């Protein structure tokens, strides 16, 4: 009885919110050109950043500050998971070894999955993708290893340190920009050194975008693997 009442109330609230949202959205026409700053990005992206992929240029270069925050959020998640699931003696407790298909497939695929992840983040300024999907792809390689082998563990101490070092790397790239160009997160490779200006649309272009995306790719890969590791392990009593 109570639950029916609760559901009814929830549905009424939802309908009110939905009506209200629809009313707001009806003032934002769908599919029409509403760009203001967006058009500026599209018009200038090639000369100003050297990237062909406008989304990447916005994410890493024009709005690079957001991305720094985003990397921080993921770092917080991995730190927070580590803090909450902390234990003195945590081990893997899985018993069933993966099937033959899984173990053989994993042995064959892991290097290629990692390679593909690296490909995604290195080509972030040219094709869809970038550091975050690339890093996530790398983490799936480790997830595969965890699923296939009961004894497998990532070298989590080294991973933690890598995470910290590449994170510092990102901030340092930003600070070099502050020192060279006078602004935090300034793209010194493209704008001051002028590297790769004849190369737009090829790999060696895009200023510091490939550098930052490599940093992000490594960071995301190690962080997500660390989260998987933390969640899979359990406290073992000796």
């Amino acid at each position: 009885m109570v639950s029916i009442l609760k559901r009814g109330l929830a549905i009424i609230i939802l309908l009110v919110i939905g009506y209200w949202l629809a009313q707001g959205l009806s003032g934002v026409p769908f599919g029409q050109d509403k760009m203001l700053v967006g058009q500026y990005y599209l018009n200038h992206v090639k000369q100003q950043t050297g990237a062909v992929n406008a989304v990447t240029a916005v994410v890493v270069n024009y709005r690079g500050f957001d991305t720094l925050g985003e990397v921080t959020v993921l770092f917080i998640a991995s730190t927070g998971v580590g803090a909450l699931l902390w234990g003195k003696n945590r081990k893997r407790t899985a018993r069933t070894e993966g099937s033959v298909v899984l173990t053989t497939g994993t042995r064959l695929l892991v290097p290629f999955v990692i390679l593909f992840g690296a490909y995604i983040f290195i080509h972030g300024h040219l094709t869809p993708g970038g550091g975050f999907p690339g890093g996530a792809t790398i983490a799936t390689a480790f997830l595969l290893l965890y699923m296939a082998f009961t004894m497998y563990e990532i070298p989590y101490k080294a991973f933690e340190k890598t995470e910290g070092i590449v994170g510092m790397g990102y901030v340092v790239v930003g600070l070099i920009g502050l020192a060279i160009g006078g602004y935090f997160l300034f793209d010194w490779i493209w704008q001051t050194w002028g590297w790769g200006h004849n190369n737009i649309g090829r790999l060696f272009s895009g200023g510091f975008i490939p550098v930052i995306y490599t940093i992000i790719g490594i960071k995301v890969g190690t962080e997500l693997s660390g989260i998987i590791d933390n969640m899979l392990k359990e406290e073992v009593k000796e």
Partner: protein
Amino acid sequence: MNGQYASLLIAIPLLSAFFVPLIKGLGKRAIKSYVLMITAIQTGIAAWVFKEVYSTGKPIIVIAGGWKPPVGINLYIGYFAALFILIVAVVSFLMAVFNFKAVTIEPIDKYAMLFLLLMLGATGMIATGDIFNLFVFMEITAITAYALTAYNKTGEAAEASLKYMILGGIGSSFFLIGVALIYGATGTLNMAQIAQLAGHINPTVAQVGLALIIFGLAVEAELFPLNAWAPDAYQAAPHPVTAMFSAFVVKAGLYAMARVLYLMSSVGTWHNVLKLLVVMATLTVVVAEFSALRQRNVKRMIAYSSISQVGLIALAFALGTQAGVDAGVFQMVNHAIIKVLLFLGVGYVAVQLGGADIENFRGLGRKMPATAFGITIGAMAAVGVPLFNIFWSKLRIILATLQVGYTWAAFLVLAASVVEAVYYFRLVHAIWFEGEGERVGESVPLVIIMIALAILVIAIGIYPNYAWSISQKAGADIFNVAQYIKNVPLMGVGA
């Protein structure tokens, strides 16, 4: 030094948080000292920024990546942001001292990182000049706060954290829908440009978008329907973190709310949103005060008192007048000081005597006289006794409310003070006139901090003019949107 170096306020905490994994082998004490050092550096930079902004009278605009707004993201450190970034840094520094006594649960290295990032998140929320960047910093603050709430790893802590997370998740989704609507209507995310264009956009879109953003920020700002998490989280979090929540995390949310609210002040339907906020704020005050009366746990009681005072600040901001905003900022400053004092005192008692239950406070005047003194000063100030700092800011809020003609709201503030007096004096009575006890040793640095804060409380109480003039400047920074737009070097994209 060039104003762009103010970006170190963001870079230093980040860099140092990323550095912690490399020194985690050095032991607990080393990590805590490291945090103390970083917060001291941050305080130094914040003090430099404060001096720079208040002596030149011009805001520092940090332009990230060298892209002029609205193409790039800018930080806007005006009177308000300079003042509050300094408060954030100082409070973090004081709590870094408190960490030595209060935090013993492992893993300290993760705690240190989260501690620094909480400071970073609040700093960013206060400084940013871009609405989506505000969302990112809000999430940094919120996710750190989720993790720190559950840090003690008890059942209650996990439950509080889950509550916070669910409300925070709903809030951030609503916030993002609001951002999407406003972006769809204006084509920009820069706050100054949004303010410039606000008058021309479809009023329904603006109203819905603004209400959604306010609703989303209300989780962080602890306003009524969305503050169910706050008392639980305050009670369950480690003591230094509780003080940080009350002193600046909630303030960052309130500021963001006030900033976005006043940016949109040229929208035709703006007053409807104000009314909504007035209702939310008054309900916050009433509900929190009456809940505080029933509490047996002192930390939880002070948490409720903090929420009610936050409601007062929101009420002052929702009046829509210059006087109201000034009074709100003044109350924010005063509230930050006394809540740090109270949570530090109560947390220290809980550490020494094993829990913040009211039983432990009987006879505290004999057991820990200096701490008892600090808590008493804080309690008297919180009630609004004359010659303590809150008296002046409550007075200002009442005057501002009467000016707008909300007599009932002014009455409400007075009634709330009476309720507050009841439970605070019950606490003070328990401390000085009940129970017996042996003397317990008190830590010298913490006593020094408490006495310094108590002196500050009384100093502002006796001589409020200086703090009031700073608050007026900071308030004008929020209220005067035309000046805000003029200060941001917008390049002519579109409009």
